[in-house]
């Protein structure tokens, strides 16, 4: 009988359960995704040149556990708000407290467990999809990366089970303690904002101090080491919460008291909508701000590492690929290069003792060397005049103009007349520079492999090609970029589901309010604007704070990235566009639920 009642409850509010359930599924999927990296020590060690990575992931775990916990607690409050009227009804009809507690337990735990099972399956799917996509995109080896990872599985199930058993107990105790009347009228009781001014003020001050400490700690990573991350984690999470708590309450109060503003149109209604559930808003908004910062931060750092690869490779070699006496196959591959910015042909003459360049040719088109000189990278153009001077330092640069068979021959520049006069074989050398090395990665790989086969290049120190260096740097950095992107995607998914959940879980309560407004003559366009503003506030505040967190947080990567603050426009731009699209989607979904078609039309 009880089971029938429990299932009946689910059927009658299918949409709300769907929102709740999909939210929890995403939460557990992301939890699994993160754990699949975080608990895989072999993966972390082999893909990151930084020994701290495992520790950083350890802190990440703590943060994710906090976030997921808030999420689950919130989801449970929502679950209870849907069910408490029914429970109260059962109790009025004579169901015993123990039976009700049992009912709550079955419902809560089965929802949690089911969400964890589905979530883990989806989490594996996402892990595989995102993982493989990134591996091929970044040409990252990502050794030891595993989609099915037993410790992550155990962690996810263990955590969700524990959380939901706990939640079930709390739910049951709370329900049985709450007076019947309150249960029957819950969810319509507004929260009066009756926080004392002094408390608000103390919270605001505390928020600023905590955030300042956190931001400062992140700049002191080199000195404080692990402490810095721990301190930043605690202070920023708390600071974010206090800031929202004080700021939002204060702001809403301020706007409501500003009568010229509040008295216009639906402003009072919109503000009341916000203040109505301010308490769970502040918690969820803090979570959203943290997730926003994590997702954006991970994406920015991932992009930073990815950008670092060609940047570092660029300093190693001016030419993206050089071919010597290219075979038909190599030439064919060379035609596939895209975005070629420069292509130069040189003629070499190979004699018994030397390989000659023609001085006239170099004068017309000087060689380009990348040299590390006097503590910095320098780009030099080399002609007959300074060839001798740079030939020594720039041996690594000249390597690509020779083949292993030339080992005993010296590279020399001779006058045009001497070049003509010299007896020996001539061969064609082509240098290529492209706009985007990564985009041409496969083509260049083919060309270099062809050349290596043609001339019997066995090891990387016989090849002066940029490709070799690039591959080396790539193997160091692409692992970090991979982690950045992977976590960026995971946190973004969690962010999306949190916001969506928060907004849609209130929708069915709001629907009646909007219908009423329509009945008393509020223009649909005005209703839509109110919806846009309300949801806009929910998106804007955490967004702004999240961006601030990231801007300070990038300080932590000063030791790892040459320019952590370089080229922020791209990751921020991508992220803001995604966020805006997501905002539009949420508004559209919410409107389709709360703004019903007028029966008159």
């Amino acid at each position, binding site marked *: 009988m009880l089971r029938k009642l429990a299932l009946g409850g689910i059927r009658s509010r299918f949409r709300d359960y769907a929102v709740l359930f999909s939210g929890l599924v995403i939460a557990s999927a992301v939890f699994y995704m993160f754990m699949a990296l975080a608990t895989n020590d072999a993966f972390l060690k082999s893909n990151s040149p930084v020994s701290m990575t495992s520790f950083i992931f350890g802190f990440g775990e703590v943060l994710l556990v906090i976030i997921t916990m808030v999420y689950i607690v919130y989801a449970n409050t929502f679950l209870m708000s849907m069910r408490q009227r029914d429970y109260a009804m059962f109790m009025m009809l004579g169901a015993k407290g123990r039976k009700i507690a049992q009912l709550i337990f079955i419902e809560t735990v089965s929802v949690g467990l089911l969400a964890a099972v589905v979530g883990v399956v989806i989490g594996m799917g996402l892990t595989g999809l995102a993982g493989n996509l990134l591996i091929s995109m970044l040409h990252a080896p990502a050794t030891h990366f595993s989609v099915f990872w037993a410790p992550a599985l155990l962690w996810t199930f263990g955590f969700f089970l524990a959380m939901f058993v706990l939640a079930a107990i709390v739910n049951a105790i709370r329900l049985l303690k709450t007076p019947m009347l309150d249960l029957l009228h819950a969810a319509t009781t507004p929260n009066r904002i009756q926080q004392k001014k002094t408390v608000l003020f103390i919270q605001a001050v505390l928020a600023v101090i905590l955030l300042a400490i956190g931001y400062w700690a992140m700049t002191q990573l080199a000195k404080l080491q692990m402490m810095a991350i721990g301190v930043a984690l605690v202070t920023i999470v708390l600071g974010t919460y206090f800031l929202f708590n004080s700021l939002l309450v204060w702001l809403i109060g301020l706007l409501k008291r500003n009568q010229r503003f509040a008295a216009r149109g639906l402003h009072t209604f919109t503000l009341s909508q916000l203040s109505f559930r301010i308490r769970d808003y502040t918690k969820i908004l803090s979570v959203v701000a943290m997730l926003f910062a994590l997702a954006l931060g991970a994406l920015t750092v991932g992009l930073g590492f990815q950008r670092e690869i060609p940047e570092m490779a660029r300093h190693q070699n001016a030419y993206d690929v050089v071919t010597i006496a290219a075979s038909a196959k190599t030439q064919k591959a060379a035609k596939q290069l895209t975005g070629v910015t420069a292509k130069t042909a040189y003629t070499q003459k190979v004699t018994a003792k030397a390989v000659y360049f023609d001085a006239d040719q170099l004068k017309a088109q000087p060689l380009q060397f990348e040299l590390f000189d006097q503590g910095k990278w320098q780009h030099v153009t080399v002609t007959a005049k300074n060839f001798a001077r740079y030939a020594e330092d720039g041996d690594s640069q000249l390597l690509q103009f020779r083949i292993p068979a030339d080992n005993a021959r010296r590279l020399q520049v001779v006058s045009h007349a001497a070049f003509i006069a010299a007896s020996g074989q001539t061969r064609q050398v082509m240098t290529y520079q492209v706009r985007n090395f990564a985009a041409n990665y496969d083509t260049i790989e083919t060309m270099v492999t062809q050349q290596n086969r043609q001339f019997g290049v066995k090891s990387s120190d016989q090849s002066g090609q940029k490709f070799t260096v690039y591959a080396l740097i790539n193997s160091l950095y692409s692992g970090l970029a991979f982690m950045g992107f992977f976590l960026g995607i995971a946190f973004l998914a969690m962010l999306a589901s949190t916001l969506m959940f928060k907004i849609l879980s209130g929708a069915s309560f709001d629907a009646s309010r909007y219908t009423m407004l329509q009945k008393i003559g509020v*223009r649909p366009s005005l209703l839509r604007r109110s919806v846009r503003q309300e949801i806009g506030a929910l998106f804007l505040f955490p967004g702004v704070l999240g961006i601030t967190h990231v801007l300070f947080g990038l300080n932590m990567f000063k030791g790892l990235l040459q320019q952590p603050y370089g080229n922020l426009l791209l990751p921020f731009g991508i992220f803001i566009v995604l966020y805006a699209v997501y905002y539009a989607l949420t508004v559209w979904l919410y409107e389709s639920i709360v703004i019903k078609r007028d029966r008159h039309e």
Partner: protein
Amino acid sequence: MQTQPVVAVNGVTKTYGKPNEKQFQALKGVTFSVQPGEFVGIMGASGSGKTTLLNILSTLDRPTAGTVVINGQDVTALKGDRLSDFRAKQVGFIFQDFNLLENLTARENIALPLALQNVSHAKQTQAVEKIAATLGIEAVLDHYPTELSGGQKQRVAAARALVQEPAILFGDEPTGALDSQSAKELLNTMASLNQEQDVSILLVTHDPFSASYAQRILFIKDGQIGQELVHGDKSQSAFYQEILDTLGTFQQ
């Protein structure tokens, strides 16, 4: 020359259900009118079509056939913003179930229609306080709906309906959820609004006592108007008795 009626209903029918589904005709050709300043009651048994009729009159629903003209405007043709504005300015209604926004205080609820027209804050306050005084709810203006009694809620709803000074006030069993004392107070208020401020009122009820406040009562049965009673010079108790008698015969 007769004055233009504030409500003119002509041959209104309403059929529920789509053509290919099971259909039910709730209204079968209703015709009547309400003159400015009139207080008209509509009575009928449960399921006779009262709410259906009122929803059509108050532009919440649309008739299957027939026309409804309010204050010279054919409301069946209204759409979009003009429909919203018409609701906001021309008609006020008090619902069977209060329909207050529970996240707004009584004051904010009442002021909402004015805020929608961007009336200045000072004027809003003035209007809200005036109507609150008329209805005797000054003391509870800053309460939330959950902090009000049923009677107070209904009066707040009435205040919200009246604050715009609409051409006509519709009430669907506004006293249905009230105890007799609160019901009496609300009805007295409505009657004095009608007499002193010439507000036209159309009140749907199946309570004979509420109906006895009206100047004219239309009886509706199975979706049609069957009979009409006029208050005239009779005392309220005599009229009340007449209503009871009519109901007795009418319902059979």
